[in-house]
């Protein structure tokens, strides 16, 4: 009942077209050829999560990436000492992308904090699609490099006074 109401209220464009609009605003996809863009817009599926639902489970090799359309999610890590809250993702964030490129047993869990709507891409779809548009490969690598560098830069800027122990461990962008 609810869902049909929702649907009727939405604009008359199909979900595929809505996805297309979203991708156009995303850094990585915005510059793609229209043909490639269509295929990706088609392959992305929408998924809803309720507060507490897992997007990503620590130790799983789920091979998925998420683009958050609405809502927020928290990142946590479970170890011998229990669960540590590590941060938050929100609308417009793209996460899990590294898992699209290769096997990645998750080091963190990501849980929906509010009601969450995501675009989801799987490794299988992504690799098959990339095979069809090989011109994207350098773009994928470039984006990854940029993101790793940005990540560390932000880490250094925001936590300039890291503890001595931690400071020794920085340098992931040197890999």
């Amino acid at each position, binding site marked *: 009942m609810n869902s049909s109401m929702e649907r009727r209220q939405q604009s008359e464009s199909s979900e595929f077209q809505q996805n297309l609009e979203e991708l156009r605003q995303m850094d990585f996809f915005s510059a793609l050829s229209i043909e490639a863009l269509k295929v990706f817009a088609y392959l992305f599926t929408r998924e809803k999560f309720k507060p507490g639902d897992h997007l990503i489970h620590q130790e799983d090799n789920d091979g998925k990436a998420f683009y958050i359309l609405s809502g927020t999610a928290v990142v946590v890590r479970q170890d011998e000492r229990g669960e540590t809250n590590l941060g938050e993702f929100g609308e417009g964030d793209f996460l899990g992308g590294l898992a699209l490129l290769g096997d990645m047993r998750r080091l963190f869990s990501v849980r929906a904090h509010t009601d969450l709507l995501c675009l989801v891409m799987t490794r299988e779809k992504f690799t098959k699609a990339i095979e*069809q548009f090989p011109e994207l490969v350098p773009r994928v690598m470039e984006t990854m490099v940029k993101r790793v560098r940005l990540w560390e830069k932000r880490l250094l800027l925001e936590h300039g006074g890291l503890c001595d122990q931690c400071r020794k461990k920085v340098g992931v962008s040197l890999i």
Partner: protein
Amino acid sequence: MGKVKPPVVNRSLWSWILTSNLKLQALLLVVIVIAVFTRVLPLEMQKRIVNEAIRFGELELLFRYCGLYLAAVVLAVSLKYLINVLQNLIGETVLADMRKELYHHILTLPLNFFRKTQPGLVVSSLVTELATAGNFVGMAIAVPVTSVLTLLAFAAFLLWLNPLLAVISLSIYPLVLFLVPMVQRRANLANKERVDVTRTLSGKIGEAITGIHEIHGNGSYRIENRKYDKMVEALRKVRVSWNLYKFGVKVLNNFFNNLSPFLIFIVGGYLAIKGRLDLGALVAFISAQEKLYEPWKELIEFYQVYQDATVRYSRTMEYFDTQPEHTLEPEDREPYELAGSIEVKDLSFVAEGGIQLLDNINLTLKPGEQLALVGFSGSGKSTLAQCIGQLYRYTSGHVLLGGKEVKDLSKKDVIYNTGFVSQTPFTFEGTIRENLLYSCAAVVNGGETLEVEAMPSLDDMIETLQQTGIFVDVLRFGLNTILLYDEHQELAAKLVRVRENFRRDFGEELADYVEFFDEDEYLYHSNVAVNLTFGSANKENYTVEKLPENDYFRQFTDEADLTRPLLTLGADLCRQTVDILGNLPPENVFFEQSPIGPHELEDYKELAKRIAKKRLHQLTSQDQTSLLRLALRFTPGIHKMVRMPSIFEEFILESRALFKEKISEDDPKAITFYQTSEYIYSKTILDNILFGKTKTVNPHAEEKINQSIIQVLIEEDLLETIVEIGMEFQVGSKGDRLSGGQRQKLAIARIFLKAPGVLIMDEATSALDNNSQSRIQGLLDSRWKGKSTLIAVVHRLDIIKGYDKIAVMKAGRIGEIGTYEELMNRKGMLYELIYGKKAAV
């Protein structure tokens, strides 16, 4: 069973005649003697008809002799048929026995033997090569006796007719007897070679089929074709020469047989002209002489079959003439019940070619202790486990199991006391249940039947399924079963109740994941066809794929004014999908969210071009059907390229009621409507409980749904019933309908169920995901520790902390052995294995 029987491979071909059904053989002999008589009788009649009846014009005699002649011919034919029947019975029985005994023998041969023996070779030996031998045993008494007796009878008859002519016509046979074996010897040589080449060829085929994924993976078709073609050519050559020699024997025989009438014509004709032989006698003689040919030909053919059978039989038996390394069953005693202690002393194992796989191994385990064998691959850890499990026969030193030398134990003693889970466990064709009980059945009663009191109970089985983590899989198999109306009505009624409870208890909670069937709502996760018919088709022509061609349905859409909106929807889907997917290859991953299948894309691309040029009503009826098909497949929850206009939904809902009304009248059996109170027999148990469609492929949502269903099933006390149904799931040949992990879990489960005193696990959890692996390790630590002695070959080092002893192997020796702490403190080989070489420095 019999006393000391010689192994089947050492039996001679002739010995099979003695063990064949001797009563049948005797009956056969009697029949043959009568048959010989019936063959001679017509000849005598022939002579009398000419000499007595015709010559003296005695009509009565003519009728009497002709009557006797006819009777003799009919009798001869019937007896010939009877002889064939008896031969066939004897031959096939012996063949079946040979096949059974040889197969039983082959299965006991040591594993080493099968390293160099391809499965194809065993198949061809058992199926093809033995067939002639069976054939031969069927003939072995009957044919030579018939032929020789017939020959003797005719010879005597000829001698009685005319001694001179008889001696002349018989004179050729000694010559044939001298020449034929000379040619046959060559044929035999060729035949031997043929058997060998066929054997290699079968092996080659077996190898290629087993490794077909590698051939596809490497695209090495040509390499394999070349190897195979070469062997086929070799086979062709040897077969040609074999056949030529065989024909040679026939030609030689024919020639001499045709030579003898020539002699009779010359001599007999001369005598008749001179008046020293009456015409009737000459005619009779020539007839009788012609009849020599038949038995003689049979005798020669028998000789050839004998030669062929001997070659094939001996060649086959020679190949498998290896003895099992261990006796199968203990004589004169029950199998030992051994304590689970293991003592390995100075153990060495040298494989063929002098390769030392194990070198002077020493270790001891008290009953219930757990040992992990670690080390690089090739370090001998698997070999050690296999020697302890009696799978390989060690070449020197001792392995004592409960104080008894493993080498001297019978196979039965070993399976009574140990359980072995191999690295690549094998699942046999049959049900989950049969595979689960495989090890227990082998111990309990040799697997004769599964229904024995000593067998594990259903509760035991379910517990084991849960422990090894395959329970959920089996439950899923059960839930995916389609029940039969005739057998399961009671269960179906209960499941309808489960459906109601499920909806009541979890309907709201799961509303985001499941779209429940509701007669008044449009279903976004079901296709248009289901939304229209709102039921499940019982007849083939009411399934989604057949509806577009179903005249009744087409008439309905016309009447309900649905055809045009459906065609418009179909055209929209066709245009959009082709636009997105038009240039992609037919790979499934691209088509999961498309109403067009990967192999239909080309057709719909063409159709899209036609739609662009024409109006819908101008399209051919075939094109319209194609569009209608897309429209009926359209599932808004999956196919996102088109948005369904809301007016269309209402349209369909209206038509749903109309359709139900109409079809209930016209063809009430065609469709089972989705009604909360009705079980749908064409759908799985899961679909029936869910009574709706899942909206997401998210595994965690599925998990939630699963948990809810399990809970409802438990409340209704049906969980075990469903698991029991799931255990009847057919796993397919080699278990190919199971995943690698499921097969491995099943293999572990069947050993856990047997609960042996000594568990040997050779990387038994290597195909499992982390959770399952940890679960089983946890089980070994808690449930089996102290109860069963465990030897585990382990390649993942994060699970070995709980073991009592860890042995690090290197190059066939134990480098170090001790507890985890001891070895880690020592910072030796284990430390190096775990932290890498650098860290150890």
